[in-house]
């Protein structure tokens, strides 16, 4: 029988925690959420020597205060779940600052191992650390590691195993003038210690810091005597004269300074001219360069995926053949061709019939809709991963912060907005990047307005079908309208919340990581993280939706299986809802087909194209679109409606999993449908006048 050892890994952001976690678990982690939250919990299992190690990755935190959800999760886990060993990561490039967390945890528990990360990089920067000295001073094992070079990992695990069951006395920092107050609080609290899970001195210190959770615990356990604690704290405030939390943090930093004194030698490496930073912090160049980089990335991704806009530009210049080649060899059309080929092969072997139709249109069609996005998302994420790991993304976020602030968002929302251009599922997930809960919710609701790649595919198809001037401006128009809607609604949301007094200025507080060459492995992890989520979330939804839509399309309530789409359940629903489209000039016998495409688009946006083609039994989308008989104003209104109207089912599922609230899912649906309808109606009326 192997003995199980449970290891919790904690560290401040940017110290290389996920790198170490991935290096130890070799990327085999189970991802779940922390109970009752949307914060992800990563857990890895591995066999090491005679042990089964369970490695739990706690969220990145700066300290153990109660202010953020991540901090509350971490400290509750450490105290209540009692991992065998807590590994605290400390960064060698930043020893003093990152030791702060280790010190806080060392005050709380006695079974920790400190891992000092990025030692290879420290070495090359002329930083030398006397690890033994720090180990002695902190009375805690200290292990230098470099996760990227896989140095020190075995030593770390061996040290962890040796530390199992070793409880060292808790760290006692001298809080100076505050000590008598800590003592008297501890004295009172000690009388109740059997009802308290936390160490009494730690509770006393946290109480003085004004920790809301600790206050609650003590209030409950102490009853009437709680008043005495409050009096002691008031007295302490008068004596110390500054915010007690600030005073306590100060003392911890002093302790950190003492810890590293004479234990670290830095050869001053000459700092390079910071040309890049100069560009990103100049108020004039920063927004321009940040904006341009994002646009450039997405143009590149668009071109690889659809050939657009190069294909269009070439055609307009008179090189229509060259333009066609760009479109033909784009990723989306290549995947389409592959599945067409497989589909034909299936038809050849099985012959026509319900089963063939189910396999080709249902299963293969669904698979194709998922697969077509994989290379695209992988490319976009890899580029973003490079920017993220090299430290450039943080600078872009800072550079663009000024622009975003005007619409009530902060630079933290750069990532979700950018991800949304690829896929709204990723965008909604990326809203976690904002530390401000209000901003996070705003992003969850509003980023689905940003056209994703699926919508680009639909837009391009319609643009080609319409042709002429209207066709040429359709795609830029749709993007312009979508972004305008996003900006206006975001602005309105901030004005409304300001009026209601819940508004908090969209501010930015970000650690600036040093610029460096990106590591391929880290970029891969970043890419894989989002790709995996897309495959699991969007993949399952899109795939099952294709199956369901096949059933709706091929089953008639009266006759069972039917080849005639016009008689299917889907057609009946669409006919019922079609009159809603008449204000947009879409009426008559064929109006239900447009409605049907809209319904399919809710399931997954790219289905709009195939829906129209199948129902009209056409060979090409161009032909199919002609058959709908839409006037140009109606076609424009339809296009804008499709762009804005509703997040697809996969995005709605993600909105739910990120907000854990049906209210927000409903809000998102209502906001999007009404906005889309309004915009479509307006554009129809405007287009009529032109």
């Amino acid at each position, binding site marked *: 029988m192997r003995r199980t050892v449970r290891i919790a890994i904690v560290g401040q952001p940017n110290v290389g925690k996920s790198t170490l976690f991935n290096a130890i678990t070799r990327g085999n982690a189970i991802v779940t959420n922390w109970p009752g939250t949307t914060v992800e919990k990563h857990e890895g299992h591995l066999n090491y020597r005679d042990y089964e190690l369970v490695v739990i990755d706690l969220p990145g935190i700066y300290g153990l205060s109660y202010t953020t959800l991540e901090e509350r999760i971490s400290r509750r886990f450490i105290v209540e779940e009692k991992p065998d060993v807590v590994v605290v990561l400390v960064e060698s490039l930043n020893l003093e600052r990152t030791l702060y967390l280790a010190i806080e945890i060392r005050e709380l528990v006695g079974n920790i191992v400190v891992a000092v990360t990025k030692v290879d990089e420290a070495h090359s920067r002329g930083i030398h650390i006397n690890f033994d000295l720090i180990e002695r001073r902190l009375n805690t094992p200290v292990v230098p590691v470099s996760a990227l070079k896989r140095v020190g990992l075995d030593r770390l695990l061996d040290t962890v195993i040796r530390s199992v069951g070793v409880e060292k006395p808790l760290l006692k920092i001298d809080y100076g003038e505050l000590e008598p107050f800590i003592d008297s609080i501890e004295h009172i609290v000690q009388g109740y210690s059997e009802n308290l899970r936390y160490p009494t001195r730690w509770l006393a210190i946290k109480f003085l810091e004004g920790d809301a959770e600790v206050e609650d615990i003590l209030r409950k356990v102490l009853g009437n005597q709680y008043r005495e604690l409050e009096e002691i704290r008031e007295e302490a405030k008068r004596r110390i004269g500054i*915010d007690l939390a600030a005073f306590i943090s100060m003392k911890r930093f002093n302790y950190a300074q003492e810890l590293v004194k004479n234990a670290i030698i830095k050869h001053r490496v000459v700092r390079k001219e910071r040309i890049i930073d100069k560009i990103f912090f100049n108020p004039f160049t920063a927004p321009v360069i940040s904006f341009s980089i994002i646009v450039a990335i997405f143009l590149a991704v668009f071109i690889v995926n659809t050939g657009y806009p190069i294909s269009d530009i070439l055609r307009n210049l008179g090189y229509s053949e060259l333009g066609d080649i760009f479109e033909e060899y784009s990723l989306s059309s290549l995947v389409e061709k592959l599945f067409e080929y497989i589909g034909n092969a299936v038809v050849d072997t099985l012959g026509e019939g319900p089963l063939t139709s189910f396999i080709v249109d249902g299963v293969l069609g669904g698979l194709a809709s998922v697969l077509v996005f994989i290379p695209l998302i992988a490319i976009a994420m890899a580029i973003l991963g490079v920017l993220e790991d090299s430290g450039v993304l943080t600078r872009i976020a800072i550079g663009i912060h000024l622009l975003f602030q005007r619409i009530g968002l902060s630079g933290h929302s750069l990532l979700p907005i950018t991800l949304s251009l690829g896929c709204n599922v990723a965008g909604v997930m990326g809203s976690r990047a904002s530390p401000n809960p209000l901003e996070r919710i705003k992003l969850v609701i509003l980023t689905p307005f940003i056209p994703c790649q699926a919508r680009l595919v639909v837009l391009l198809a319609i643009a080609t079908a319409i042709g002429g001037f209207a066709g040429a401006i359709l795609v830029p128009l749709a993007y312009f309208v979508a972004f305008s809607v996003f900006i206006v609604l975001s602005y309105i949301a901030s004005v409304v919340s300001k009026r209601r007094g819940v508004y908090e200025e969209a*501010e930015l507080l970000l650690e600036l990581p040093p610029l460096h060459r990106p590591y391929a492995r880290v970029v891969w992890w970043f890419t894989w993280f989002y790709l995996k989520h897309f495959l699991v979330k969007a993949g399952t939804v899109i795939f099952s939706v294709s199956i369901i839509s096949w059933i709706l399309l091929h089953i008639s309530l009266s006759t069972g299986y039917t080849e005639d789409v016009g008689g299917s359940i889907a057609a009946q629903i669409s006919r019922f809802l079609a009159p809603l489209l008449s204000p947009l000039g879409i009426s008559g016998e064929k109006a239900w087909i447009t409605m049907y495409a809209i319904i399919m688009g809710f399931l997954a946006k790219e289905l709009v194209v195939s829906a129209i083609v199948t129902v009209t039994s056409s060979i090409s989308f161009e032909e199919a679109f002609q058959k709908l008989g839409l006037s140009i104003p109606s076609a424009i209104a339809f296009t804008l409606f499709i762009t804005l109207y509703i997040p697809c089912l996969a995005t709605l599922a993600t909105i739910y999993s990120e907000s854990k609230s049906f209210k927000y899912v409903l809000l998102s649906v209502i906001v999007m449908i009404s906005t889309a309808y309004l915009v479509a109606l307006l554009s129809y009326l405007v287009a009529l006048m032109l």
Partner: protein
Amino acid sequence: MEVTSLDMVREGSRVVVVEVGSYGWSRRLYQMGIVPGSKLEVVFNKGVGPVVVRVGDTEVSIGRGIAKKILVKVDSS
């Protein structure tokens, strides 16, 4: 020495933090090493946009709204 808010400090100056202010962001600032008494070097301050300071070996970009509430005095030592 005169006390001013961090957003008013010129680029390149070294300052000592006098007060961080008690509001939403203060705990995070404390944890990042920005507490009363800590020494900062103002790396970038362009009059608009975030103020970038160096604390120990890290650089932190602080939104102007937050910087306005951090009181500092210029370090003469």
